[in-house]
């Protein structure tokens, strides 16, 4: 199994070069919201282990919200974030990236403060790395290569079924399966289809993952005596806070709304970047950290592959805390429109959404951290839209494919290669076609 890795480079933009940076980023697109995958700066299509990538200028327009807590408005540097989700080893990817697109990366990063053109790019990017506090991968081990091979398989089967429709009518599922197995084997022998075997899981990753699996609960157990004392106090305090925290939910202005919408719905999937300042104070900070560590742990070890709770439309997502954990950004890659995405969250994962996002200033009022909140649908949607940032460049390695498509293709392949499906499983498998 080839595990997925991710990176995020975060660097302050040199204010005198912001305009130039924006122009450079725009030059990577062929139209608003549509990246040119072979653009001169970073031809994303070259990297066959890259799932998603984006460049986004973290220009949070809600910084003044802290005033509701009587805190002076801080000015943060305007950051450029460059992030991606990849297969396999991160170092190897970064080396490859720099080797083939070093020049493009240098021109982009030369718009950042303190970047020297002759600097060692890989080292610079690592030094400016912003690790995620929580990360979600729809299907760990599903590589870009695998996705493409399985999509080709589905297409070949579709064509075969269309041209052999009559011959396949009225025959039992098991025969259909063996018929298709023969076809696929012949296609493989002829070199028209490739279905690569899984690579062995890197031992280093395996050990790290196992340590994480045990380590986090162990840490939890070790600190339990302390937590038993602290958590009730935290909860009482939190309860008081959530009753008085201000809600800052109003509809965004038309220009902001248009800027976001013009980038959306160019593919069956969309990008999402949202940023906010955390509510001040120790209680909110540690609640957020505790919850995000929990989310990360669950996403890594507990959730069922292909799902984040009940949600099956997210490819990759992550939470990153910035500026001494005073601010946070949420990135995701999801299927469908932002409207259906928000509905999904409200109706299917409202509790988790509230637990995480209620740490953001202005979030609709929660009740015991997980209740209410986003159940105030319009306030929540207004809140979220207000915090959503335009993503300047967004790349997806498999346009036209949703996470459900990937799931269907995976199941089709798995069934083909299985030798032990029951009668019922074979029926369900035939229904996938």
């Amino acid at each position, binding site marked *: 199994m080839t595990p997925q890795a991710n990176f995020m480079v975060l660097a302050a933009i040199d204010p005198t070069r912001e305009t130039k940076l924006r122009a450079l980023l725009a030059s990577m697109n062929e139209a608003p919201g*549509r990246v040119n995958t072979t653009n001169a700066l970073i031809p994303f299509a070259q990297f066959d282990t890259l799932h998603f990538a984006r460049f986004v200028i973290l220009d949070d327009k809600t910084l003044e919200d802290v005033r509701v807590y009587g805190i002076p408005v801080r000015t943060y540097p305007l950051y450029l974030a460059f992030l991606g989700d990849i297969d396999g080893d991160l170092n190897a990817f970064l080396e490859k990236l720099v080797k083939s697109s070093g020049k493009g990366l240098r021109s982009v990063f030369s718009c950042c403060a303190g970047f020297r053109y002759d600097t060692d790019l890989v080292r610079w990017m690592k030094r400016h790395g912003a690790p995620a506090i929580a990360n979600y991968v729809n299907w760990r081990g599903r590589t870009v290569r695998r996705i493409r091979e399985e999509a080709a398989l589905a297409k070949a089967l579709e064509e075969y*079924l*269309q041209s052999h*429709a009559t011959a*396949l*009518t*009225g*025959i*039992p*599922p098991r025969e*259909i399966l063996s018929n298709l197995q023969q076809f696929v084997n012949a296609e493989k022998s002829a070199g028209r289809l490739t279905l690569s075997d899984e690579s062995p899981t890197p031992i280093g990753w395996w050990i790290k993952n196992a340590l994480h699996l045990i380590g986090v609960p162990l840490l939890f157990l070790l600190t339990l005596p302390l937590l038993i004392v602290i958590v009730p106090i935290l909860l009482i305090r939190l309860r008081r806070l959530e009753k008085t925290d201000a809600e800052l939910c109003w*509809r965004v202005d*038309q220009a902001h*709304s*248009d800027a976001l*919408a*013009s980038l*959306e*719905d*160019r*593919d*069956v999937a969309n990008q999402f970047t949202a940023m906010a300042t955390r509510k001040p104070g120790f209680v909110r900070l540690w609640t957020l950290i505790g919850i995000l560590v929990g989310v990360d742990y669950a996403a890594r070890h507990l*959730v*069922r592959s292909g*799902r*984040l*709770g*009940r*949600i*099956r439309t997210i490819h990759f997502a992550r939470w990153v805390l910035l500026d001494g954990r005073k601010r946070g950004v949420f990135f995701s890659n999801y*299927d*469908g*429109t932002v*409207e*259906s995405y928000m*509905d*999904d969250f409200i*109706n*299917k994962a409202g*509790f988790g959404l509230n637990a995480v996002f209620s740490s953001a200033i202005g979030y609709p009022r929660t009740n015991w951290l997980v209740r209410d909140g986003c*159940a*105030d*649908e*319009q306030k929540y949607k207004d809140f979220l839209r207000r915090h959503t940032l335009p993503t300047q460049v967004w790349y997806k390695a*498999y*346009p*036209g*494919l*949703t996470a*459900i*498509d990937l*799931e*269907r293709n995976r*199941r089709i392949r798995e069934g083909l290669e299985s030798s032990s499906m029951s009668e019922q499983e074979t*029926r*369900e498998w*035939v*229904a*996938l*076609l």
Partner: protein
Amino acid sequence: MKQSEVEYRDVQGLVRFGYAKMKEASYVHLRVKDVAAARAWLRNAPIASAVVMTPAPSTAMQVAFTAAGLEAVGVPPLVLARFSQEFRTGMTEENRSRRLGDVGSNAPSQWEWGYGTSVPHLMVMFFAEPGRLHAFMQTSKGNAWNAAFEEQRWLGTADLDGVEPFGFTDGISQPQIDWERQRNVTRPQLDYTNVVALGEFLLGYPNEYDKYTDRPLIDADSAGAGGLLAAEDAPEKKDIGRNGTYLVMRQLRQDVRSFWQFVNRQAGGNSVEADKLGAALVGRTRAGDPLVPMQEQAIPGIGPDPEEIRQNQFTFAKDPMGAGCPFGAHVRRENPRNTDFPGRPTGLAKLITMLGFGPRGFRDDLMSAVRFHRILRRGREYGPELLPENALAPAPPNDPERGLHFICLNANISRQFEFLQNAWTVNTKFSGLTGEGDPLIGNREAIPGCLITDNFTMQKDGGVRRRVSGLPQFVTVRGGAYFLIPGLRALRYFAGDGDR
């Protein structure tokens, strides 16, 4: 929070009635020529309310405004700004068009109306029993009409006796509005119900989230606000939205010949098979019967009329493989009849489902709960009838246009109409499918990475599905706009004689 009874005399009748007995109808799009005259006409217009009258009236008139129309009659910008963004920016906003599938031959630039300067200010809708329409329109217009308005276009309608132009019985499934305000939405809904919270169809009342949809509220001492009702959720304010709702109108041209010729060709000329395929595309037979068996358990809001029970007392829960009614069939897309949780789990099972450890089937839990996405349809057909058996003949020269003046009412355009249109109609990935939009009303536009969108799949249990490809586009959008169909108090506020 005070829960009051609905003041029916403040609600325009169309929200409560379909005016089915008034078989004649005509809609006129207007531009305001003279503001004072327009206001004067509006103040005196005999607009039908939702009060039940005995004997039933034989005519009815309704009035709806676009955002441009509200501006034209002088509604203050600050009030206008509080209406929904969809309504204010309109149906033809570029990014919205992409979501609604209004691209290619459906693009607003190709429309007959609703784009650029052809956006109406007002729509006046006339309904009448047979033979009475013309006279009713004349008397309703009165003297001020000509001074007040410029008539942009008249949209006539045809009475096809409950059948839409393709030949299928239409309007069978409608949500039942909870006028009595009995519905409790605070707990997860485990059973499908046809009763929908009043606030989904009228502004000023709680919706399916038990919240009040955004609408303009103004200070009680604002000019002209005296006649308005107080907002239930903010009693110190007056509610301009109360008892009004949004009206979505789209003129949909239906290519009846193309539909039946395609279906007939696929069926190899066999008319029984053609009818079967037609029914599969629609999800109901021509007579309106569902393709899945009726369930025994009653569904709230359906019945007691036995015909209604026969045609509507069903869900798709018993057809998980799509073998009865294809997943992509028009009616299964537009109303999947699902609930908040698939498989109605309770107790621990519910918690397990919530955490994502419920059923692991490929198609489990893919769709949003339908109760947040219901619309009330009030459309009427236009153009001469063309029976399916006659539709096989090639079109004569100057074959008249036929189709549907689609009209629906909803309190939240983006969550109701637009969601339905985008996520369930245009979406080629609906319900785990791929490569197919709505077989009846979808466009067939390619999307990046997914060039084929003109398939239609009929699932089989225990066999390979039948996939029809090369579906032509049967329906083309010819015009459209978002309107507000205000409560009558709000209408009088809009038409106030210059005291603002």
